[in-house]
């Protein structure tokens, strides 16, 4: 069997979506899709080096840059979910009453409540930095802790230190049982988390399986895939949304 390598982010793979989404494709084309689940930065680096055939990540700016520099072709928006702000039930900074995520972040900073940052250039980290920038705050000081770890581990650290954290909803849902943190803020447009897929440019890397890669990219936006994505539930909630409305 031929194989095609899909580099994606840990959070995407950990939700279990790909495990239901890919088998129909694999069967149809008699191919094995090998998933390399890593950080966003590393996924794009694998694409740049030609070590992956397809890249699926959630960091729009970086994706566009990736395509602009000629590493990726045929980038498509696949789906989106959203980020949520997690915090302790007691909500010491009173984030729940905020009207926007910017206000929520301001409250945390003013209150000097502990805030855990991924600090790893992941899609989530980049989003968090965007929000701080828009809120006009340079986060620094003892309350702001960059831990440089994956989403799950970071949630756990936030839980242990009774702090706030920005998380993608998928990871939070799969962690729900094991953490005391709750969603203290959600629903702002800014927290929109779009996923994009793209094939690695065969002109730079002649060895990539471009034809199969294109089939896979197209499959992600096919009727069949959309159906699967929209009916995919975690803890009874729909996690990913497509653009077909």
């Amino acid at each position, binding site marked *: 069997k031929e194989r095609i*390598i899909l580099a994606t982010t*840990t959070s995407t793979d*950990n939700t279990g979506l790909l495990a239901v989404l890919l088998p129909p494709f694999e069967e149809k084309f008699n191919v*094995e899709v*090998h*998933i*390399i*689940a890593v950080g966003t930065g590393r996924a794009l680096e694998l694409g740049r*080096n*030609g*070590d992956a055939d397809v890249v699926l990540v959630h960091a729009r700016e970086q994706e566009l840059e990736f395509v602009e520099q000629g590493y990726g072709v045929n980038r498509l928006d696949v789906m989106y979910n959203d980020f949520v702000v997690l915090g302790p039930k007691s909500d010491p900074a009173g984030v729940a009453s905020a009207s926007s995520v910017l206000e929520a972040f301001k409250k945390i900073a003013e209150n000097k409540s502990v805030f855990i940052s991924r600090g790893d250039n992941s899609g989530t980290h980049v989003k968090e930095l965007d929000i701080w920038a828009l809120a006009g705050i340079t986060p620094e000081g003892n309350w702001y802790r960059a831990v440089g770890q*994956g*989403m*799950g*581990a970071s*949630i*756990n650290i936030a839980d242990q230190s009774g702090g706030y954290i920005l998380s993608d909803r998928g990871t939070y849902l*799969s*962690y729900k049982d*094991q*953490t005391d943190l709750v969603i203290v803020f959600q629903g702002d447009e800014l927290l929109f988390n779009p996923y994009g897929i793209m094939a690695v440019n065969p002109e730079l*890397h002649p*060895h990539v399986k471009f034809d199969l890669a294109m089939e896979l990219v197209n499959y992600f936006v096919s009727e069949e895939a959309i159906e699967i994505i929209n009916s995919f539930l975690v803890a009874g909630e729909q996690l990913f949304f497509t653009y077909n409305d």
Partner: protein
Amino acid sequence: MDYIVRAVIQAVQLITSFDDSVISIASLSIRVSLTSTLIASLIGIPIGFILGTCKFRGRSLLTSILNTLLSIPTVVVGLAVYSVISRRGPLGELGLLFTPTAIIIGQTILALPIISALTMNATRDMDRVLWNTAVSLGSSRVQAAILLLKHARFAIVGAVIAGFGRVVAEVGASMMLGGNIANYTRTLTTAISLETSKGDFSFAIALGIILLLVSFSVNLGVYFFQQWTRRASIKTGERYS
């Protein structure tokens, strides 16, 4: 403590249910780690022996360098090998990245320093008289080296076991070079790291327990093999005692 109790129960369940995917993951771990330990032993034991027994200028510098290599982080070895076998690297055309072979390459490099260093230590305290005895009984240099290694076999086997321990437990190189692809390059350690990142700590520990059981079986295998060779060697003369 919670996690640990739950982990033990889960480990028992996984083992008694002969879970297919766990079996395939465990068997990949064993295969890959045994292969790399074997290759590293074939290269590392002679290197260690030479460093341990031959006196030459710069030996103590080499010793220090070898000892330093003990502390090379697994992910750095992973990265270094990656940069060679990545598509852009000099060996990119072989398409080794994200295959079990890639893991074996990385693990071999990881096992080499520890096996050499421990062989060096084992043969360093050894008596010159033993070498003279071996040589005067008619050993070629290679035969004499083998005899001395046999003489210090506890420590040599220990070196190999430590090498195996290092690679079967490592995750950095396996993750980097194998990619943790389900049913293909997922080893016990990359699976553990995956479960940890998912937050399923007790499942991660359960897999850790399975890894230890796997490793225990390998160690028992080594033990029985040693017993058996020893008994066999005694058998030879049994008639007369």
